[in-house]
């Protein structure tokens, strides 16, 4: 695809800069996108990718810099203006309305005033022609994340854009669904459309992208042809240094080790109309092992975590057992006192109180388990003990911060996550349950967290990791189970697990069955 270099540029960006307060999110960014190419935008979390595309789509205003569209200078002042030029965007965090139907969602982004029924027909036709079948009358709240993304893509295509921006599109798809998406993208390229593809998954970028621009700390650090690079060389460009590989020593004698966490016939009715019910979940995690739970987002993982952590109590107290004792009727604190530790998915607001200091956040989660060391006589908090414990965690996990004891919200996502995981690890829990341990965390911090979880297991604890990131689960786990539509498969030992087998389970296929087709005629 070196011919791309000769083609005319559809979009040229010169010196685009965006400053938030003291942070320069984008620093003199240059970017050229040719007609009919798939251009990758690579970078770690916080490298400025999202800020850059928000400026291209008109939802942020650049402080300085120029944008040329088809050779002519343009000002993109609003998403409406971007659409008028011919820029379409598929968002990472979906911009859909849950209480409306697919057709209504599509109608909202088209300004031609045609009736919704005709839009529904057009959307249906277009979706089938691209092999992304869609029922326009279905309510978005009822759809899976993969199906929601189809709506986003169809909505974008209906505007017949020349440039399509996709922000981390495969993070919510099964490997098979991602393949389908790549076919669609290649077809769009063949039609002469340009695609700006944002991802941190390097294998994908190597597979479908013609050129890549790499961002680091808000600056362009290089342009390259991803096909001529290796995943390791791309990673080095993104991170700026070598990323330490995670080491997982083989687990020994697991079969005879005591079961520290047992889930027995756990079921739960949906709490809200759009929630997923849990159906008869069984799982055993033994001392010394890491079990991973894979699955496309929104298949009941959140409900499962809430039930196991004690945010929601069970009717049947025997459905969750910690270290051989029934815990289903106990609250979070009760379960913590039995030796369990939990790290929820959402860092700010769930894992940590944003406007409280790190030491205060430490006290909030450990006042009961560490009552003796943190709380003195008469219920007075021993501030110095809490402070020094916080500093111990900060050092152990290499948390980078601007003040000795900053507010949780002042930390970057990766550093806060390191602190939250470290806060639980510091207790040496015998059962550790983590939901999305490295979501939105940069590669260096992610490797650190993963290594710490493996070491905790090898020192004799049971570790359960729920994640959407398959690469992560393959790095961490001794066995992987898949959650689909509120049901959990039996764990596959890592030696037998392949991306394909796990992917099929994520799509809803039963183990041992033939390939399951997502398409419904």
């Amino acid at each position, binding site marked *: 695809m070196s011919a791309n270099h000769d083609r005319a540029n559809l979009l040229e960006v010169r010196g685009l800069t965006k400053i938030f307060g003291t942070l320069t999110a984008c620093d003199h960014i240059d970017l050229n996108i040719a007609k009919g190419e798939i251009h990758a935008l690579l970078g770690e979390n916080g490298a400025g990718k999202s800020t850059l595309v928000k400026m291209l789509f*008109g939802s942020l205003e650049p402080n300085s810099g120029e944008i040329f569209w088809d050779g002519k200078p343009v000002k993109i002042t609003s998403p409406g203006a971007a659409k008028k030029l011919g820029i379409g965007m598929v968002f990472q965090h979906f911009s859909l309305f849950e209480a409306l139907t697919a057709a209504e969602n599509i109608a*909202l982004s088209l300004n031609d005033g045609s009736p919704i029924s005709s839009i529904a027909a057009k959307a249906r036709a277009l979706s089938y022609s691209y092999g992304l079948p869609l029922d326009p009358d279905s309510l978005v709240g009822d759809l899976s994340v993969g199906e929601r993304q189809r709506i986003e893509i169809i909505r974008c295509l209906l505007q017949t854009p020349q440039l399509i921006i996709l922000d981390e599109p495969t993070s919510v798809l099964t490997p098979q669904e991602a393949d389908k998406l790549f076919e669609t993208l290649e077809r769009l390229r063949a039609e002469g459309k340009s695609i700006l593809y944002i991802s941190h998954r390097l294998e994908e970028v190597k597979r479908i992208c013609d050129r890549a621009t790499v961002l680091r700390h808000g600056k362009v650090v290089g342009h390259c042809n991803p096909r001529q690079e290796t995943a390791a060389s791309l990673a080095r460009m993104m991170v700026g240094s070598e990323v330490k590989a995670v080491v997982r020593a083989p687990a020994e004698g697991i079969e005879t080790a005591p079961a520290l966490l047992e889930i027995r016939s756990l079921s739960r009715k949906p709490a809200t*109309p759009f929630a997923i019910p849990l159906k008869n979940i069984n799982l055993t995690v033994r001392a010394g092992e890491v079990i991973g739970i894979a699955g496309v987002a929104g298949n009941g993982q959140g409900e499962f975590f809430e039930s196991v952590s004690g945010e929601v109590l069970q009717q049947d107290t025997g459905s969750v057992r910690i270290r051989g004792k029934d815990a289903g009727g106990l609250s979070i604190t009760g379960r913590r006192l039995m030796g369990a530790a939990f790290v929820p998915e959402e860092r700010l607001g769930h894992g940590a109180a944003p406007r409280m200091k790190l030491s205060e956040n430490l006290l909030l989660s450990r006042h009961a388990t560490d009552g003796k060391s943190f709380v003195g006589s008469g219920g007075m908090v021993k501030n110095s003990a809490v402070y020094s414990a916080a500093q111990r965690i900060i050092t152990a996990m290499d948390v980078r911060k601007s003040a000795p004891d900053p507010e949780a919200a002042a930390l970057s996502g990766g550093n806060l996550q390191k602190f939250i995981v470290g806060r639980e690890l510091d207790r040496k829990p015998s059962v550790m349950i983590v939901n999305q341990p490295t979501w939105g965390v940069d590669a260096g911090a992610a490797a650190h967290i993963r290594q710490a979880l493996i070491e905790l297991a090898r020192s004799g604890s049971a570790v359960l990791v729920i994640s959407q990131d398959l690469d992560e689960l393959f790095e961490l786990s001794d066995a992987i189970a898949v959650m689909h539509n509120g049901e959990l498969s039996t764990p596959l030992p890592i030696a037998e697990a392949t991306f394909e087998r796990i992917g099929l389970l994520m799509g809803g296929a039963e183990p041992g069955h033939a390939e399951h087709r997502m398409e419904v005629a």
Partner: protein
Amino acid sequence: MDITVNILLTIATAATPLLIAAIGELVVERSGVLNLGVEGMMIVGAVGGFGAGYLTGSPWIGLLAAIIVGALFSLLFAVMTLSLATNQVATGLSLTLLGLGLSGMIGTSFVGQPGVRLPNLDIPGISSIPVVGKLVFGQDPVFYISIALTAAVMWFLFKTRTGLTLRSIGDSHTSAHALGIKVIRYRYLAVIFGGACAGLAGGHLSLVYTPQWVENMSAGRGWIALALVVFASWRPWRVLAGAYIFGAVWIGQLHAQAFGIPVPSQFLSSLPYLATVVVLVLISRNKRLTMMNTPASLGQPFVPDR
């Protein structure tokens, strides 16, 4: 026979201001804004309407003034909550307090003055037909406006593109902004519409219901309208049903008290509230439908990042 017709007419008169104020607030809340200032906007509408009617002698000018005053008063709320992104609950409450105080101050010279009343519709020959004539063709003009308004809002919200856009903003203002929808502009218009409706409802009180000015004459009707919107799960026809149930039980208990039924009057006075809540809770049993109709971004200030 005549008594029944008269009772039905008084029910309609009692329900009309509730219906108008609630329909206006429904549109506001569907756009994702919670304006707790309905009571305040209603009472300034009432005093403005009475004042303009009294000074000009024309009840129609009074009605128009009530609408304009209500809309202007809501504009204050809009500027605070939408442009300055203040807390909607606090701003709404202070709007109510301000409205009650301001109307009392403005209205001191109107107390005890004879007001003007909007004449009932009178179509010669038709309005005098027994029962039907009086009920269908002989009521006050605001009654017809309220029914037309309900139908128009239903059509607007669920049949037009603009209505769909408004609902989408109420569901998720960030998504709407990402699509290039002008969230703030829509919300301004919705809030002003809600203010105009509340003003009109107030005008009905001082120009039709009891054509005079009495301090605090809205007597909590704004709060009832607010509650109606929530209990009707943001659906116009349910607001209509709720307003009329409230009106019917209200009038019914007044008659019951007049007849001297041996039930504590306090209990009778609380009946309308109780009955309305029970009935609306019963018809909103479908959780899924309620979820679909609840504006998810209700009450959250929206500050676009630029």
